[in-house]
């Protein structure tokens, strides 16, 4: 992890129908850092993630990507998004395209790649997630875990500077989550900058450089996962971890 900053969110506010979901979030993420955002449902963590690439437009505040604001009308937000791609809870693979074509589409349309080059790049990305054998399968023919791995392949084929994960394993059967988490681990160890909204506490503990705990639209506590998980400073963090770690199998925190 370097000290150089990748992205910084400043005072992000967002309301839906009069209900304030984000009440001023500040967060800075360094290059090659892996940040896991945890917290109860409805805490605003997914909304915050979606504000980072303005798929959800914040009401107030600013996002700086590599030091440059991405908020103004002069910003080519499509170009920015292609460098900080997102992986969704429900995979959102393009349903009418094969796994390989799913990856090729943005390479051709956004990166302007020739077909042959995009094809080779797509196959390479599929190989990295262990699915080169499924290149010609349609999303409907793949399991949830496989679909999510294709979605990750689609993201990394863009050679982004950062990948954002929005509860990537929440829609999966428990026995399929590990294959997705495995791919994410490899990506993290390879030096990718990652922001992960997750309920997978073991993943956060093992892989994250920093854990951010959100509740009721604010960041309650953040820090080193070893400290957050063993000795949280805030009562709300303690309560939340107590609740979720109860039903979590596996070894207790080291």
């Amino acid at each position, binding site marked *: 992890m370097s000290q150089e900053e990748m992205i910084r969110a400043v005072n992000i506010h967002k309301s839906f129908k009069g209900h304030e979901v984000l009440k001023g979030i500040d967060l800075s993420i360094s290059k090659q850092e892996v940040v896991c955002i945890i917290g109860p449902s409805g805490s605003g963590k997914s909304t915050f993630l979606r504000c980072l690439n303005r798929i959800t437009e914040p009401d107030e505040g600013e996002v700086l990507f590599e030091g440059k604001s991405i908020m103004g009308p002069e910003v080519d937000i*499509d170009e920015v*998004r292609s460098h900080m*791609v997102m992986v969704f809870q429900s995979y959102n693979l393009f349903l009418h395209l094969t796994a390989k074509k799913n990856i090729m589409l943005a390479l051709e349309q*956004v990166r302007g790649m020739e077909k042959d080059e995009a094809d080779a790049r797509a196959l390479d990305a599929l190989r990295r997630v262990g699915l080169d054998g499924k290149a010609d399968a349609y*999303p409907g023919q793949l399991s949830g875990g496989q679909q999510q791995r294709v979605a990750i392949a689609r993201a990394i084929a863009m050679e982004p500077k950062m990948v954002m994960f929005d509860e990537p394993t929440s829609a999966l059967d428990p026995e399929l989550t590990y294959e997705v988490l495995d791919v994410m681990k490899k990506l993290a160890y390879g030096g990718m900058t990652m922001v992960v909204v997750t309920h997978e506490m073991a993943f956060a503990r093992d892989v994250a450089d920093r854990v951010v705990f959100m509740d009721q639209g604010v960041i309650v506590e953040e820090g080193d996962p070893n400290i957050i998980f063993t000795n949280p400073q805030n009562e709300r963090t303690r309560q939340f971890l107590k609740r979720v770690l109860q039903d979590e199998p596996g070894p207790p925190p080291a």
Partner: protein
Amino acid sequence: MTMADGWQIIQGNLDAFLAAAGVTVQVAVFGLAIGFAGGVLLALSRISSFKPLSWLATIYIEIIRGTPLLIQIFFIYFGFGAISPLLNFNALTAGILALGLNSAAYQAEIIRGGIESVPKGQMEAARSIGMTRMQAMRHVILPQSFRLMIPAMTNEMVTLIKDTSLVSTITVVELTFVGKQLTSRYLEAVPILGFVALIYLVMTFATSRAMRYLEHKYRIPGYGEEE
């Protein structure tokens, strides 16, 4: 009157029937084409974030769907000429235009329904990987929605083919017009109108089979088969 007599009337007027069927096909094809072009424009207008455009499209669609097609045909044939001499169409043009403008409203709703039934996450995924709205529409949303639209479009096409018979009322010499003419000449309604009905049936059946083939051909493996 025997079967043979009836068959003789049909055989003796086969040229007239075929010519009339040609006109029916012409009205149907041009009507559907105008309807599709208009339908795409109306559908995109309706889902546009520019409110006045969306309202105009909605008003147009509601008026067309809420009034009888026969009145619309009369309105364009008899009424438009009174508004401006430039709009004084011959019967065939007026008939095609009326059916096309009518079908546009129905096709617009089918197209809008198709676009809106593509899961929201598809647009989000496309936008969040850097595609523009246009690119996402063209490469992700529309290809999926056209497939979803096929069954409803088949209905609309079959309906329009049958509705072409209404333009006989403004003297377009198509199948129904010729059927009525020959019936009053020979006073043999059953064989003549039966044959006319059979020709319509062939057209509608061929259309729905062709669309079924398209639906099958462009079926997405695994699509809609998830639990």
